[in-house]
């Protein structure tokens, strides 16, 4: 270490600081960087405008206070109804997501064709907008909660399917290797090694999906199933900011409860 000749030898042996990119990657890097810079310019951002505008933000916030708790009871009832549908939609969506995720996880899929197909279906589910799903289901099963639940299920599938797949891809390969070494089938490896590794993340994703379904329940209104989302929209449309504030706070409370549940479950699992 103190011998200078040795140090020279080391300098020679030092690994490259960065893997030298090939021409294609290099071009890609530069192109992406240039694109991002261009995007930033197009966004017409300005810190001064932002800072100058902060006082007017306060004005709007002021309009929302104090929240109007007068209709709390009916808001509570709607919340409960919405949450009910969200629970059903999420449970179904999560249940469907698991097999889809297995097929869409690069290291679990039975073969490449299934992988691309499953990925495609999941992606498609979330690219087609809610409104279209809502119309689809309302035409299929008629107005009401059932159509709403189906719309939420599809939403959840598009979301959880992808995240479950990604979590499964990240699962530690060691235990999986051990199970394949002892002749376990795919189902055995998934149940025995992949799911236990993915479980905390899957719990978090599922409860996020539940929360998301509750928050974005506007879709329920499209199918005549009510929902707190549409109430909030109504309050906003009627310029009833104080009532909107109440609804937002109620949703916030529910979301906090869901999130704490998630945290508690995960704390046990991790």
């Amino acid at each position, binding site marked *: 270490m103190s011998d200078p000749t040795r140090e020279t030898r080391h300098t020679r042996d030092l690994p490259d600081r960065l893997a030298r990119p090939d021409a294609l990657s290099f071009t890609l890097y530069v192109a992406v960087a240039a694109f991002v810079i261009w995007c930033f310019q197009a966004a017409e951002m300005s810190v001064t405008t932002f800072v100058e505008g902060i006082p007017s933000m306060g004005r709007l916030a002021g309009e929302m206070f104090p929240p109007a708790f007068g209709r709390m009871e009916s808001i509570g009832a709607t919340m409960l109804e919405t949450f009910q549908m969200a629970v059903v939609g999420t449970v179904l969506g999560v249940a469907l997501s698991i097999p889809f995720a297995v097929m869409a996880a690069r290291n679990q899929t039975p073969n490449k064709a299934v992988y691309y197909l499953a990925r495609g279906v999941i992606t498609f589910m979330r690219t087609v907008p809610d409104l279209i799903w809502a119309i689809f289901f309302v035409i299929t099963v008629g107005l009401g909660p059932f159509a709403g639940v189906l719309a939420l299920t599809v939403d959840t599938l598009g979301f959880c399917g992808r995240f479950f797949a990604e979590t499964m891809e990240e699962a530690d390969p060691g235990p999986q290797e*051990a199970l394949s070494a*002892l002749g*376990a089938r795919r189902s055995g490896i998934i149940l025995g090694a992949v799911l236990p590794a993915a479980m905390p993340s899957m719990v978090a994703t599922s409860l996020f999906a539940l929360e998301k379904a509750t928050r974005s329940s506007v879709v329920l209104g499209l199918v005549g199933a009510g929902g707190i989302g549409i109430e909030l929209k109504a309050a906003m449309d009627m310029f009833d900011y104080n009532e909107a504030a109440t609804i937002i706070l109620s949703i916030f409370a529910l979301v906090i409860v869901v999130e704490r549940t998630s945290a508690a479950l995960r704390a046990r699992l991790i």
Partner: protein
Amino acid sequence: MSVQPAETVAVPGAHAPGAAASVPHAERAAHLNVRGLRKRYGTDEADVLQNAGFLLHEGESLAVIGANGSGKSTMLRCCLRLIEPDAGDIHLLGQDVMAARGPNLRRLRAQVGFVFQRHNLVPRLSVLSNVLHGAQARLSSPRNWFQATAPARLRVEALACLDRVGLADLAGRRADRLSGGQSQRVAIARTLMQRPRLVFADEPAASLDPTAGEEVMELFAQLMRDEGIGVLFTCHDLTHAQRYGDRVLALKRGQVMFDRRVGEVDFDQLRDLYAPSPSADPAQPQEPRHV
């Protein structure tokens, strides 16, 4: 004793150098016959295994020794195609491993117990569930794989396997809350649960205390004697190789240096085998770089 690559191994179909010595085994079936195994990780790296081969007979134990990074673990993995060898011929229990697909490959693997160097337990499951996993290949219903749902008969069997490695009282513990040696033993118990016909054990005694290490090696020896199970184990503890190996296979930088009956190995003269590799061979392919 100066160690040189064993040229005979390269000849396809020929026995390893220890072959003449293993004549007493001739009447026994060859449980595992490996020839010309070659493996490199990533195209821009050096060969990790070069033309490696050996024979393992029924009820025989083969100790694989070699320096760190000489390719022992890689060789064991390749034999079950947990990693795909680049070339080679592997016959396991009379079947061609390289040609096996899907269920056939699984059935072959099910006959081999594999104790991994890093144990590879499922961290969030209980010790008992981990042991139950050993039975996955022979019991196809998922309820058999978890201690909460498995039938009593199976749980008792798993507990007995744990007992054989002295861990029956930790059956309910989560597998990631074990000491190093305890997790090693659970990995061994899982292999026992598998009822294998052959055991591959990658440094099975490395984290065990001296008594436990002997016990585990004795356990393997007993399986060999009583049930004709072949054992292929790697170790750095030469007394273990000497005491529990019928034959010793020495690897050096991916090549088989020798494969002899244990009596013919001079354990005090293995310095060469463990000599550090000559520094930075310029002809050697470049390592890939990482942050």
